[in-house]
C-alpha cells in the first residue's frame, strides 16, 4: 500500500510538533523516520497509525483519503517503543488479541486462531513460548512477540516506534536483520522511527531526516550520505 502524506500539520498546545510536512511512501518500501527527539517523527508515525489526528492536511492510503479513518479501521500493525505487550496475557493470547477483537462474523474459529498464532510463533523463531507471560521474556523476545502480534491482524502497513531502542547492541543487529527478512517476505510498506542514524542507514530503503517538525531530506541512504542537503543533515549523520 502506498502512503501519501499531504501537508500534515500538528500542534500540541503552543508547541508545533509538525509544520506542514508532505511525503510519498511507495508501496512495499522500508522507510526510516530519522531525527533527534522532538523532531516530530513519532507524531508523524502516530498520525499514520490513527493514534493522533492532524490539525491540517491529509493522509491518503492507496490514493483514498484516510485522514479521518479510525485507528481500528486503519489496520496498521503498530509496534510500540516499549512493546506494550498485555502483561496479564500469555504470549499466545497477546498474539491472538487482534483476531479475537474482530466482529463475530469476521472472527476466525478458535482452531484457526490457534493455527495462526502457531505460524507466527514459528515465523519469529520462538515456537515454544506461547504459554509464557511477557514478564518472563527477554527484551529481544518481547520485541519479536510485539511484531508477531502486529502481523496477526494482516495489517496493511507496519509502523514501528523505536523498535530497537531498548535492546543491547548484539540483539539489535540480529533483530534488524529479522525485520528486514519479515519486510521482504511480507512485502508490507514499513515505516520505523529511530534516532540512530546508523540503524536508519543500514536498514532502510528510504530515509526521511526530520528536525523541529520539518522534513530536512528524503532519499536513499547513499544519496543522503553523498549529498546532505543542509548543515543539520550533515552533522546529524556524521555523529
Amino acid at each position, binding site marked *: 500500500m502506498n502512503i501519501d502524506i499531504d501537508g500534515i500539520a500538528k500542534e500540541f498546545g503552543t508547541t508545533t510538533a509538525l509544520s506542514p510536512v508532505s511525503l510519498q511512501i511507495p508501496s512495499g518500501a522500508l522507510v526510516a523516520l530519522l531525527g533527534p527527539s522532538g523532531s516530530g517523527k513519532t507524531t508523524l508515525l502516530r498520525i499514520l497509525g490513527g493514534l493522533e489526528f492532524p490539525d491540517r492536511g491529509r493522509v491518503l492510503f492507496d490514493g483514498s483519503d484516510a485522514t479521518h479513518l479510525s485507528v481500528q479501521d486503519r489496520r496498521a500493525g503498530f509496534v510500540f517503543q516499549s512493546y*506494550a505487550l498485555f502483561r*496479564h496475557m500469555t504470549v499466545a493470547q497477546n498474539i491472538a*488479541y*487482534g483476531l479475537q477483537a474482530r466482529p463475530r462474523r469476521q472472527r476466525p474459529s478458535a482452531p484457526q486462531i490457534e493455527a495462526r498464532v502457531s505460524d507466527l510463533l514459528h515465523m519469529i523463531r520462538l515456537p515454544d513460548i506461547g504459554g509464557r507471560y511477557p514478564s*518472563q521474556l527477554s527484551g529481544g523476545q518481547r520485541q519479536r512477540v510485539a511484531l508477531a502480534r502486529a502481523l496477526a*491482524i494482516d495489517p496493511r502497513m507496519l509502523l514501528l516506534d523505536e523498535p530497537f531502542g531498548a535492546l543491547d547492541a548484539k540483539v539489535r543487529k540480529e533483530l534488524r536483520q529479522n525485520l528486514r527478512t519479515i519486510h521482504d517476505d511480507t512485502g508490507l510498506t514499513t515505516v520505523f522511527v529511530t534516532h540512530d542514524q546508523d540503524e536508519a542507514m543500514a536498514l532502510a530503503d528510504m530515509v526521511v531526516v526530520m528536525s523541529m517538525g520539518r522534513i530536512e531530506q528524503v532519499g536513499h541512504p547513499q544519496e543522503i550520505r553523498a549529498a546532505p542537503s543542509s548543515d543539520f543533515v550533515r552533522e546529524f549523520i556524521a555523529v
Partner: protein
Amino acid sequence: MSDIALAPRRACTTEARPLRAALIALAFAGLGLLVFAPLALVFGHALSDGWAASVAALRQPDALSAIRLTLLITALTIPLNAGFGIAAAWFVTRFEFRGKALLITLIDLPFSVSPVVAGLCIVLLFGANSAMGGWLVAHDMTVVFALPGILLATVFVTFPFVARELIPVMIEQGRAEEEAALTLGAGGWRVFRTVTLPNIRWALIYGVLLCTARAMGEFGAVAVVSGKIRGQTATMPITIEMLYNEYLSTAAFSMAALLTVFALLTLLVKTLLEIRHSDQLAAMRRH
C-alpha cells in the same frame, strides 16, 4: 542448609543484636497497644455477660434494623464509588485538560473536610428549609433524615478511596497497552474490559475494600444527616454510640464486636484473594 547460610552474617544493613531486639520489641509493643489491645477489649466487653446475652442484644429489632441499614448502605455505596472512582481516575490519567490539578484536589476534598461539615452541607442543601429540599419534600422524596441522605453522606465520605488507589497505578501503566489494543482493532469497551480493567484489578479491589470498611464505620456525616431515628435511620456506628450513652455496655460492645468482625472479614477477603492469585501478582510486578 548450605554452608553460606551458616556463615555469620555481617551485612552492612544489619544492626547490632541488642538494637535489633529492642526495635522489634518496640514495634510489637506499639502494635499490641494500638491494635490488639483494643480488639481484645471490644470482644472481651461484648462477651462479658456471656455469649447468649450478646446474641440476644443483637437480635433486638432496633439492632437488627441497624445491621440491615449498614449492610444496605455499604452494598449501595460500593458499586457507586467503584464506578465514580474508575471514571474519575480514567478522566484524570488519560486526558490532558485545563483545571486537572483542581479536579485532583476536589477528589481529595472528602479527606480534608470534616465528615460533620459534609453532613451539615447535605442537610443545608437537601433539608426541608432549602429550595431544593422543599421541592423534594413536596414531591414526596425526603433526602435528609432518610436513606438517600445517609447514602449521599457515605458516598461523599468514601469517594476518594477507589480513585486514589487507581490514579497512581494508571499513571504508572500509561496508555501504551490501551493504544496497542486499539491498533489491533478493539473498540473502546473491549479495550476497557480486556486491557484496562485487568491491569487495574488489584488497585480496584484494594480501593473497594477500603471503601467498604469506611462505609460501614462512617459516623460523623451520617450522624448529622440521619437524625438518629432508632429502628429507621440509625446505622451500626450510631446505634453503638446511643447504646453506650445509655449505659447498655453489653449491647454496645456486642454491636461494636460485630462491626469489627465485618471489617476483619474484608481483610480476610483481601488476604484470600492475594494468596489465590499470588503467582499473577508476582508476574505483574516483575514486568
